[in-house]
């Protein structure tokens, strides 16, 4: 029996090709209501590989039922192709959007998303009134007054609806019988330093393989970020409710909306003995900001004086940021190129961590075995077993508010949450920060009070580009957006599809943030009211019929 190798190779390649081609066609999922639907379909787009199809179909049904138009889910095969059309303003309808806060401040949810020309302004929204209120808020030193200004800005958004807020995503997690004192922070991540393990040994938690070397300036995803946040300590750290407290910093004084003076505590060291001083921060921040280094966190330094933001260059020149000035070994001054009265609040984010001088000798090697100043440290060289786990032990030299209570911390990498959940049930995994969807119905019985379901700084919205026909920034567009918003039964969806692990949105930010309020004027537009929705839609049809 002689087989032809070409046939085998050809068949194998053909098989792969056909699968690839089949995968490239967008899935067509028609979800029109049954009776009086007429007119062209409204499309809702997302990437098929994100597991969003369930709720998108539910939302489509809800809108279709209330407005009497066909609504379709138009899924892209993967995130890259979805992103392509989104960035090229080519999505022909509504699309899935949302925001996860970098730090627990209102400005992060409003300024970065809805001001004219902002980086993450995907719908193309522009409003002078909104921009003015936000600018005033970010220059206001009194946090309560600032919050009031930001909320007034939100009332503008509620009228225009550049995106339609859907719900807030809760932190839903659980832990095993082996650990105690598990609390989740504002960012839906467990506060690892507080967890105790009465039986001794390392606490095991779920993680994913870091996609980059573990460096403050190069980590932009959860896998690496999780590790980074436990082995480094920044100028400030965040409490569970989102408020800040000084960690490495002795004091952070906002001299003016554009100048901050930072004093560092004396006597702090990295785990290799090097001191933590002004240079540790200035050198690390410059490394992240310099354009030619092409680091992923360059974006976080763009408000500092000296940062160049043009079409040709994005970042600081090679000499570094002129806005970072060293006053003495433990003091430095930051000058900003635009007002940011919440700058102190941002400094807990990982991009602002310090680095020891040894890092600059070989940044890539350092990223493989990073040396930090946080409550935990890597358990020797090779503690990062790729695709398997990363082992940390308590850093005895740490001196700060987040001292580790357990002997160590091991992040086991999982590619899916179902496997992690089974490990949790078998007490093979101590802390799981995200329960899989299929556990929503049963986790309360299986885990009892070893679980948590609390609001996180993460929301989900439906964005509609200003460039989409019938949805422009005019009266017709606004009426249609309001109609759609009132046609979505958020309560029913969060209850039935998410089993209460989401909370219907009443604004554009999140209850986990300081300054959040659920008493904004005009938030009735986010409540389910199918009759009013139909009425508004008909009014829009009078201006320009839906066809």
């Amino acid at each position, binding site marked *: *029996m002689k087989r032809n190798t070409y046939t085998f190779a050809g068949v194998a390649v053909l098989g792969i090709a056909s699968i690839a081609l089949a995968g490239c066609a967008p899935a067509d999922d028609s979800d029109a209501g049954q009776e009086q639907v007429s007119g062209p379909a409204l499309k809702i787009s997302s990437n098929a590989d994100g597991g969003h199809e369930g709720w998108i179909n539910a939302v489509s049904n809800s809108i279709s039922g209330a407005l009497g138009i066909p609504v379709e889910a138009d899924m892209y095969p993967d995130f890259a192709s979805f*992103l392509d059309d989104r960035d090229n303003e080519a999505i022909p309808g509504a699309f899935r959007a949302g925001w996860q806060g970098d730090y627990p401040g209102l400005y992060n949810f409003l300024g970065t998303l809805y001001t004219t020309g902002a980086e993450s302004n995907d719908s193309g929204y522009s409003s002078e009134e909104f921009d003015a209120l936000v600018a005033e808020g970010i220059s206001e030193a009194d946090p309560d007054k600032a919050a009031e200004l930001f909320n007034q800005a939100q009332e503008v958004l509620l009228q225009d609806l550049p995106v339609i807020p859907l719900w807030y995503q809760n932190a839903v997690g659980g832990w095993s019988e082996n650990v105690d004192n598990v609390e989740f922070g504002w960012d839906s991540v467990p506060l690892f330093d507080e967890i105790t393990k009465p039986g001794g040994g390392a606490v095991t938690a779920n993680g994913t393989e870091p996609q980059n070397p573990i460096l403050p300036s190069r980590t932009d995803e959860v896998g690496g970020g999780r590790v980074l946040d436990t082995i480094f300590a920044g100028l400030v750290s965040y409490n569970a409710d989102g408020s800040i407290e000084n960690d490495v910093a002795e004091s952070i004084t906002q001299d003016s909306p554009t100048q901050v003076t930072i004093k560092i505590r004396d006597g702090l060291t990295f785990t290799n003995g090097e001191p933590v001083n002004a240079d540790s921060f200035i050198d690390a921040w410059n490394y992240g900001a310099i354009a030619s280094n092409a680091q992923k966190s360059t974006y976080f330094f763009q408000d500092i004086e000296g940062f160049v933001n043009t079409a040709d260059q994005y970042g600081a020149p090679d000499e570094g940021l002129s806005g970072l000035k060293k006053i003495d070994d433990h003091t430095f001054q930051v000058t900003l190129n635009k007002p940011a009265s919440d700058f102190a609040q941002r400094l807990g984010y990982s991009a602002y961590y310090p680095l020891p001088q040894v890092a600059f000798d070989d940044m890539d090697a350092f990223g493989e075995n990073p040396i930090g100043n946080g409550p935990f440290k890597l358990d020797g060289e090779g503690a990062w077993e790729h695709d398997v786990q990363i082992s940390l032990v308590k850093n005895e030299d740490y001196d700060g508010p987040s001292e580790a209570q357990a002997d160590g911390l091991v992040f086991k990498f999982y*590619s899916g949450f179902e496997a992690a959940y089974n490990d949790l049930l078998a007490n093979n995994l101590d802390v799981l920060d995200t329960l899989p969807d299929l556990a929503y119905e049963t986790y309360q019985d299986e885990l009892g009070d070893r679980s948590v379901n609390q609001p996180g700084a993460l929301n989900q919205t439906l964005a509609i580009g200003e460039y989409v026909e019938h949805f422009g920034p005019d009266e017709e567009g606004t009426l249609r957006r309001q109609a759609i918003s009132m046609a979505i039964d958020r309560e029913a969806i969060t209850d039935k599809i998410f089993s209460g692990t989401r909370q219907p949105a009443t604004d554009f930010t999140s209850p986990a943030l300081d300054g959040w309020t659920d008493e904004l004027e005009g938030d009735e537009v986010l409540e389910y009211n199918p009759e009013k929705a139909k009425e508004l839609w008909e009014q829009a049809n009078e201006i320009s019929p839906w066809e």
Partner: protein
Amino acid sequence: MLFYILKRILQVIPVFLGATLLIYFMVFAMPGDPIAALFGDKQPPDALLDQIRAEYLLDQPFIVQYLHYLGGIFRLDFGTTFGGQDVIDVLARTFPVTLRLAVEAVAMAFVLAIVIGALSAFFKNTWFDHTMLVVSLIFVAIPIFVVGFFAQYFIGVKLGWASPTVGENNGWLGLILPAITLAFSIYATSMRLTRSSTIETLGQDWVRTAYGKGLPRRRVIPVHVLRNSLIPMITDLGTQFGVLMVGATVTEAIFNIPGVGNTLYLAIIKHEAPTIVSFVTVFVVLYVIINLLIDLLYGLLDPRIRYVS
């Protein structure tokens, strides 16, 4: 014989070139920008994206990228992942794990399939035979992820006999549960193949001759019957093994095994060309080589088969 082997090995080269070109092209043609996708919702401005793209040569025309990649292969440099790791390190790390899993699964399935298949053939049409056929039908009917989740939940969580996930204990012992899951899917066809092949052999003239010569059963069965009836099994083994190497993706996902299937799947989602092309090419070549070895094994098992150049 030597010429034959040489000729087959030389045939690997055009297969290799064709496979790499085709797959590289397919990844290249996928819509969407992998670099922008890395940043998720927080898009940096174009200047930064352009710089990262230039690093990965993604701004060059297709043929330049492909030739650069090919040149790298000859220096055993399979490219870098978006995370900065060498693809060859990723391959070296994940390959042994999936290899162990495949070997264990195939071993378990085949030993059982050969024993049961042969016995079914000897006791053809008895209750034993019928029962075994029905059981194999059931095994084939249950989808692999059902078996996997079931095994994970009942044996891993409820009974606690094994760990629900594999993770760091991905040695021979830790992979037993997923290997059993995989074995379910290959056992059925192999067992039926053995059974029908053995039945056919049992009816051959030379078996009757052997018995006629007075040879005892304990000599006829292993030497004359099994040796011949197992030849189709060897082909099956090669095919199943090759399929398992890449096709264990579902099992790897369920049990959290850091193997090839898992890594390849994640790379495809990210449109990470160096990883995808390297992994797939290695497996195409491996598949071809395994088939060559099996063809040669034929000659050992069955002296009637000779390779003429």
